C-alpha cells in the first residue's frame, strides 16, 4: 500500500477530475436535483454511497468477473446498491425520497458508478478503489451542493429552507427553473476552466 498514491486517488475526484465539471458526467441529477441545498447534498450522498460500495465490491471480485460479461455484472452490482439506497431513503428520509423521486433509481444509468467500475475498480486494488470512489463521490456532492447553494440562495432567497436574504429581496425565480440550472452549470464550468487554465 502506497500512501501518496492513496491520497492522489482520493483527491483527484475533488478537483482534477471532479465528475460534473471536468468530465461533464452525471448531468441529469446535477441539473434536476439542485433546486435546494438539501436535495443537492442528499443526491450527492446517495451517489457517494453507491459509488463507494460498488467500487469496493467490483474491485474485490475483479479477478472472478470474466471480461465478456463484465458490463452486466457491473450493472447488477450498481443496481443492487441503488435499490438499497432507494429503500433506505424511503424508510428514513421520506421527504428527501419524495423530492428526489425518479432520480434515485436513475443513479443506475448515471455514467459515474459504471464509469468508475470500468475505468478504475476493475483494474485496481480494493483500497485504491475505495479512495477513488470516495473522492469522486465527495467531488460530485460538493459540485451539486455548490450549484444548489447558488440556485437556492438567489432563486428562492433561502438556505436549507431558512430565509437569509434581506426583507425586500426579490428572488430570481428563473434560477429555480430548468433553464436556470443550465445557465448556472455553464457559468460554473466557465469559472472552473478559467481557474484550471492557469494550472497547465
Amino acid at each position: 500500500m502506497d500512501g501518496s498514491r492513496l491520497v492522489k486517488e482520493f483527491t483527484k475526484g475533488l478537483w482534477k477530475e471532479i465528475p460534473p465539471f471536468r468530465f461533464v458526467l452525471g448531468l441529469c441529477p446535477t441539473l434536476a436535483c439542485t433546486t435546494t441545498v438539501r436535495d443537492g447534498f442528499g443526491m450527492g450522498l446517495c451517489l457517494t454511497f453507491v459509488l463507494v460500495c460498488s467500487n469496493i465490491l467490483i474491485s474485490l471480485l475483479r479477478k472472478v468477473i470474466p471480461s465478456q460479461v463484465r458490463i452486466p455484472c457491473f450493472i447488477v452490482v450498481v443496481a443492487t446498491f441503488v435499490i438499497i439506497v432507494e429503500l433506505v431513503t424511503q424508510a428514513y428520509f421520506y421527504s428527501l425520497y419524495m423530492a428526489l423521486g425518479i432520480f434515485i433509481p436513475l443513479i443506475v444509468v448515471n455514467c459515474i458508478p459504471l464509469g468508475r467500475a470500468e475505468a478504475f475498480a476493475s483494474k485496481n486494488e480494493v483500497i485504491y478503489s475505495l479512495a477513488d470512489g470516495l473522492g469522486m463521490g465527495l467531488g460530485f456532492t460538493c459540485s451539486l451542493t455548490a450549484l444548489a447553494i447558488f440556485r437556492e440562495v438567489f432563486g428562492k432567497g433561502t438556505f436549507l429552507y431558512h430565509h437569509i436574504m434581506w426583507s425586500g429581496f426579490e428572488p430570481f425565480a428563473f434560477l429555480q427553473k430548468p433553464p436556470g440550472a443550465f445557465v448556472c452549470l455553464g457559468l460554473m464550468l466557465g469559472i472552473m476552466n478559467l481557474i484550471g487554465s492557469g494550472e497547465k
Partner: protein
Amino acid sequence: MRDIVKLIVVLTAFCVASAFSLAFVRQATKERIEYQKLKILVAPAVKAVFPAFDNDPILERVKVKLSEKEIINVFPAKKGGSLIGIAYEGIGSGHGGDVEVLVGIDLDGKILGVKVVKHGETPGIGTKATDSKEFLDQFKGKGVGSKLTLTAAGGEIEAVSGATETSTAITEAVRKAIEVFPKVKEQVIGG
C-alpha cells in the same frame, strides 16, 4: 464451451446474490416504509377525525382481519393512555373510482369525524361533497343503529346538491365502515 458455462455461472451467481441481499433489505425496511407512507397520506386525516388525542395512531396501528382476504389498518387514538376511539377506512364506489373515507369512531360506535382520504371525483363537481365540512359533519354523532343512507333513499344524510353520486359514495363508505365496527372493535380491544 467451458467459457460459456463459466459466464453463465458467474452472472447467475451475481443475480442470485443481488436478489438475496435486496430481499433482506426490503424485509428490514418494509415496516418503516409503510409507516412513512401512512404518515403522509393518512396522518392529516386521522388528526381531522378525532377531536383530541396525544398518541401516534399511525405508529400504534393494528392490522385487523375482516375476512380471509381483507386486512385493514386500524388507527387507535388515545388520550392519557386510555383508548378514546379508533379510525379506519371505508370504501364507496364513486363516479371516478373508489372513494376512500377515514371514519373515526368512539368505543360506543358513535362517529367522531369523517374525512375523505383518496378519491378520483370530478374537480368542481364531486369535490363539492368531498371537501364540504358541512356535509361530512352530518355524520358526527350518528353511528351503529343510524340509517346511513341519503334522505332520498329514506336515510338521515342530506346530499350535497349537484354532487349526489359522490355524496352516495361517501355515505356508502361510512356505512360500510360502521357495519364492520363490532368485528373491528372485538379484534382491537378484545371484546
